[in-house]
């Protein structure tokens, strides 16, 4: 096994190993560790091997195996269940544009990774597929909603895996599994052919990786705009790989240890982000303590409404497709509760106001990003929870705890700003902690450059201990 996707592709190119050997090795790992971790929920091993045998596109990641999340992206021939019984067996007929770009880069899609129902949880324990386990400790959650992807990468099943992030769903599992996770700018990665719901501007697709350079390269390979995309991120001045490899200029970094919503932040988590801040200072950056300067209530109400209205639309379209009414066992209790709540209360004006609210929050945080180039916060305010803590069968628990785990991350979704989580040491239980960095729209290059600098100053373990 190689350190990352770029190293894997280089080994294949040099003839040290064949693409078939690499893909077979990944399949072997998924077959061996898959059942314990429950990271992979659909596979296409035979077809993947046939693709390898018939010749892969000569892209820069030729022969690198990968997995796509069971939410938001389509792989032809595989079901897209969205972690929901309502979509069980919804087999796709075409690849999403992003999947097509992965393939054009030479990557081989082996299957789909587990997601909580419609991504509505910071843990990955859908009733349909059961919980994914954290490779660092099987009693713990891998985070969510890209928890299957995070578990697969941190257990070394594949070097990189696709994820998406509508409230922290790339960054939270990256933090929980000790990986690098970048949520790109709004509009950076096309969702074609799935036209955006109102949630589309909030969520972004990219990958969870072991190295920063893999994330940069995959962003270059997958982020050029699709003609007609409704949102477009600022064009990068140079390729992301180049930006990632160039030492950043002296950055003004605002260090945040308190939540905008005033909720609890564990001292272990604060200590970890302070260590990252100290490292940034050692590297010559200017770090200054600050508080997040946006209206947390406004952000939450706008965000929740946009997510709620998109949930309503998705469910209604699915029911229309199936030609039936909603049944009691279609949705998990928590999803059902949100669904029914919004169905009863949602007004058109509320949707209008929600769009205005996220724009206001964008300007509020944007003003702070004049003073600071980047904002550094914890990724999760609390240590990684055990499985069962975020229990979607108990709506009252989810209502109470659900917002905790995305309290630092969701604002980047509301504003469309790029943000990343990078490993920041371990907690007292030996599980990974993450440092979260937000930049203004279009600043992925700066984020990647800082990440590379931190990665080489204090390299992190990229695999969970029992998978090294």
């Amino acid at each position, binding site marked *: 096994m190689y350190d990352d996707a770029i190293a894997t592709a280089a080994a294949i190119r040099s003839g040290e190993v064949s693409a078939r050997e690499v893909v077979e090795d990944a399949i072997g790992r998924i077959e061996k560790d898959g059942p314990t971790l429950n990271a992979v929920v659909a596979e296409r091993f035979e077809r993947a091997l046939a693709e390898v045998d018939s010749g892969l596109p000569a892209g820069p990641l030729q022969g690198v195996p990968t997995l796509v999340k069971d939410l938001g992206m389509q792989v032809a021939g595989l079901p897209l269940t969205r972690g929901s019984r309502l979509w069980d067996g919804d087999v796709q007929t075409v690849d999403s544009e992003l999947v097509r770009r992965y393939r054009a880069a030479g990557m081989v899609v082996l299957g789909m990774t587990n997601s909580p129902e419609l991504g509505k949880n910071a843990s990955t324990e859908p009733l349909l597929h059961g919980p994914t386990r954290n490779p660092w400790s099987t009693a713990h959650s891998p985070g969510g909603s890209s928890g299957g992807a995070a578990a697969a990468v941190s257990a070394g099943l594949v070097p990189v895996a696709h994820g998406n992030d509508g409230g922290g769903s790339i960054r939270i599992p990256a933090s929980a599994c000790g990986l690098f996770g970048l949520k790109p700018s709004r509009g950076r990665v096309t969702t074609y052919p799935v036209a955006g719901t109102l949630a589309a501007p909030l969520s972004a697709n990219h990958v969870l990786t072991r190295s920063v*350079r893999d994330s940069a390269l995959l962003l270059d390979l997958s982020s050029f705009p699709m003609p007609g995309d409704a949102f477009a991120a600022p064009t990068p*001045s140079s390729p992301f790989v*180049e930006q990632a490899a*160039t030492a950043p200029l002296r950055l003004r970094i605002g260090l945040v240890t308190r939540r905008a919503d005033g909720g609890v932040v564990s001292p272990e988590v604060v200590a970890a982000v302070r260590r990252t801040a100290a490292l940034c200072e050692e590297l010559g950056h200017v770090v200054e303590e600050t508080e997040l300067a946006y209206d947390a209530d406004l952000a939450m109400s706008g965000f929740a409404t946009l997510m709620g209205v998109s949930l309503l639309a998705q469910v209604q379209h699915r029911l229309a497709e199936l030609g039936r009414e909603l049944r009691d066992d279609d949705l998990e209790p928590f999803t059902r509760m949100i669904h029914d709540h919004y169905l009863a209360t949602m007004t058109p004006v509320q949707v209008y106001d929600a769009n205005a609210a996220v724009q206001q929050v964008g300007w509020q945080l944007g003003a702070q990003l004049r003073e600071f180039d980047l904002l550094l916060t914890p990724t999760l305010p609390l240590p990684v929870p055990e499985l069962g803590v975020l229990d979607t069968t108990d709506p009252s628990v989810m209502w109470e705890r659900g917002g905790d785990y995305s309290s630092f991350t969701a604002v980047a979704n509301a504003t469309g700003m790029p943000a990343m989580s990078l490993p920041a040491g371990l907690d007292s239980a030996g599980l990974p902690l993450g440092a979260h960095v937000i930049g203004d729209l279009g600043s992925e290059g700066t984020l990647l*450059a800082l990440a590379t600098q931190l990665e080489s100053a204090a390299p992190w373990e990229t695999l969970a201990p029992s998978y090294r």
Partner: protein
Amino acid sequence: MAGSGTAHLRTDRERSLVVDDLVVEFPVTHGTVHAVSGLNLDLLPGETLGILGESGCGKSSAGRAVMQLPPPTSGSVHLGEVELTGLKAREMRRARARMQLVLQDPVSALNPRRKVKDLVVEGLEIWGWAERRRDTFVDELLTSVGLDPESVREKRPHELSGGQCQRVCIARALALDPEVLICDEPVSSLDVSVQAQILNLLEQARERYGLSMVFIAHDVAVVKNISDRVLVMYLGKTCEVLPSDGLERNALHPYTRLLLASVPSEADADRAPAGVEAAPGSKAVELPSPLDPPSGCRFRTRCPLATDRCAAEEPRLRELRPGQFVACHHPDPTLADPTLADPTLADPTPEE
């Protein structure tokens, strides 16, 4: 404050010259020429600061205002401990002697009717200092600027070459034992072959007399060679202040990069000499009018990276690398001369 920031000033060091928020405006019939709009700079003892910028950006206006010839519209100039603005005529003359100006056109700077031996001590005569040692002193001075006293002592300016005239001007400036020498395009009117000699002479003089120097020019190569630190000006504002070591590689401001891009490369140098006539930015559009400079960042009308923010908000100097200060909202570390970039850095697939 009207300037583009003071982050580059070294307030914790001993400085021979400090210029604060210098503004030079010229009232004209149809408004006001904003020649220099809030320039801040300082000079350490023995240091050479290069001021670089294309024609009309306000370099000479700044240099003259520092000398109080004429005094600036506003702002202050400290020479050592002495604040020059508002000095009485006699004190001003005394202070000015500690700071000497060397100009672009040496021939017209010299009185055509006087002989070299008189010209070099003109400044001293005003003070009545040099009566006794006059002849030996003149010969020493002429020797120190590389002239043979025997052959030039009795000559008048028209009998000398441009380079020799500039040597006389430099000797004249050195005669007053100044602390600061302000050179405004001192080699621009000279043949390329003579330029290097004069630059060497200035460099030697700086070392020998412990001078600090402000060296104004529009030629990147000239400024870079002689300076410790370079300040890049555009339309009366400071864009970037950076060490001259590694300038081509490190420059970050889009305007500095434009200046560098218009310097003939090694390959072009065979065809056309890197002459002073190759005006930087000559390929680019006209300089906007200093009567009505653009809002926000003055460079924005020519900047490939300009955004709305650049029109709305003036960028301030920020230290982006140790010792490098840039006034730009969108500095980009990957914007370097591609021919200088380390190719291994950009290789996404290093074989390891």
